[in-house]
């Protein structure tokens, strides 16, 4: 599903060069639920951004769904993000001027679905997250947990193969965090591959597999072995 080999990412400013990822290798199989933990600044978001085609790596190979994606044009990357990847952000990132319906509609419009199909998907995904009654509400009229559920609905509406979440519960209290986690588990059970960055060890443990990123590299033993096996194969 996701296969990164020797990915490097460095950020260069006028004075310093930061190596956010170094020889980063990782495979995630179809249907897996992987949690990613690690100290602040270790490169978790960088990994997620590269995985989600939000940033391009400085070097290395990245196969997504069997396709080498690091050389794709901006336009093709936009299309892949739109069709294959769902994002869930720590800050929810709903568009404040749009009601729930229009928020979920945003990626569907870029996809080019007709209005009937969009409406069907919006209603279905809102129902999945239990917010059908709020369709005309603005994001500001919802609690944080509800907003994150709308963001999940927005990610689900495109029926992505692959869901990327960067600290999806970071801004939520523990009750709401549990609800969101349960929702993600349901989504994963329905077949969507999930990679979730989290600081919460309890949530991290609930994933099939936990990888640790330290200093821009995967430090999880099991996974390191996996990566070497992949390299050999």
């Amino acid at each position, binding site marked *: 599903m996701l296969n990164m080999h020797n990915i490097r990412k460095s950020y260069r400013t006028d004075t310093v060069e930061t190596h956010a990822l170094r020889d980063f290798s990782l495979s995630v199989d179809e249907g897996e639920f992987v949690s990613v933990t690690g100290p602040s600044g270790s490169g978790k978001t960088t990994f997620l951004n590269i995985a989600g085609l939000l940033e391009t790596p400085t070097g290395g190979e990245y196969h997504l769904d069997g396709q080498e994606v690091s050389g794709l044009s901006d336009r093709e990357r936009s299309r892949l993000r739109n069709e294959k990847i769902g994002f869930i*952000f720590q800050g929810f990132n709903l568009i404040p001027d*749009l009601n729930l319906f229009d928020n979920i509609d945003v990626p569907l419009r870029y996809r080019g679905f007709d209005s009937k199909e969009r409406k069907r998907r919006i209603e279905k995904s809102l129902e999945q997250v239990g917010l059908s009654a709020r369709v005309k509400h603005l994001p500001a009229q919802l609690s944080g947990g509800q907003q994150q559920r709308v963001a999940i609905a927005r990610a689900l509406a495109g029926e992505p193969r692959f869901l990327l979440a960067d600290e999806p519960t970071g801004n939520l209290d523990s009750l709401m965090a549990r609800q969101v986690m349960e929702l993600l588990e349901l989504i994963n059970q329905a077949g969507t591959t999930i990679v979730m960055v989290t600081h919460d060890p309890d949530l991290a443990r609930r994933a099939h597999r936990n990888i640790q990123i330290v200093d821009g590299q995967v430090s999880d033993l099991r996974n390191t072995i996996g990566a070497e096996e992949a390299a050999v194969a």
Partner: protein
Amino acid sequence: MLELKPMLSALWRNKVAALLIALQLALTLAIVSNATVIVMERIDKMARPTGMDLENIFSVTFKPVDNNYDMAGAMQADLDLIRSLPGVIDASVTHQIPLSGSGSASGYYTEPNQVVGSFTANYYQTDPHFIEALGLNLVEGRNFLDNEMYTIGQNDRHNPAVVIVTKRFAERVFPDESAVGKFLYAGADDHPTQIIGVIERHLGAWPGWSLGGNAVFVPLFVTNKQAHYVVRTESGQRDALLKQVEAQLAERDPERVIKLATLSEQLAESYVGDNLMVKVLTVVIALLTLIVALGIVGLTFFWINQRTKQIGVRRALGATRANISRYFLVENSMIAGSGLLLGAAGATTINEILVRDLSQPVLPLSLLFLCALLLLSVSLVAALSPAMRAANISPAVATRSV
């Protein structure tokens, strides 16, 4: 693909800024379109043909120092001298200089002793050389004969037997028939003056006059305290001959004050006000357009900065660069479109007032449309660079900034 409805609802939540720009555009259109129609009218007015060989004519004015001066004799001697100069096409005496802003007008009747319903025209006392000396075009009838020319004293009375008129005057007085052979009566008397010729065009004394172009010419020289000549030269020799004539006339008779000026100079002086108006209004149009363009650039940049996060999120959700820049251009067009619609209504209202109270020209719908189109393009061009910048916002903004 076009997201008009959500775009409108997003706009609605930022309506104050949008409204301000729309209003600014409305005001700009209202002022710019009315200013443009005035500028165009003035330019048209200044570009009107004078009927004369404008670039090759200069005028001479002389005033004798002595009160008992032989004006008629001097006039004849001066004109003989001027006409003998190589490069001079012709010269004639005239009691007023055309296009100079000073002149006389008189009312003419078609019936003897008529008291109401006169036709007003510029009135020139001149001589049989005036057609050649001004480069006029005689389109019908004939020129004055030498024996039709009279010279009289200041207190004498003489009713000219013949008159030459402009086509404009001829068509106004005798709309459906030839004016040649018809009679005019000056100042409610019973002395007939026959129209013997029609010249194509002569703008007269006051270029801005609403009856400009209505002119009549009679063969008459009234000895007075001063006299004017008009001199037409071969093309390109005007300035040299002006100096030569000035020197030779002074040499022939130093006992007088002589003043010379080109006809184009005098026309330019008559148009000073119009020229100023054109310049001022052009600056106003340019400034207003610039200000509205800057306002749009500023507002669009401001909005894009405000929505950086949102743009990054849209990119993360699959928007291409083109999607993003198109969003801002379409949004800009919607604001501009509504502002310009309002402005068109405003422009029409202002124009109605200008036409009614200040007798300014009517604003044609086509010109209004053209101005609106121009401002729409200005607003699109203004939004272009901010929209490009928006398109370059990285999708990583979605995860990087909170």
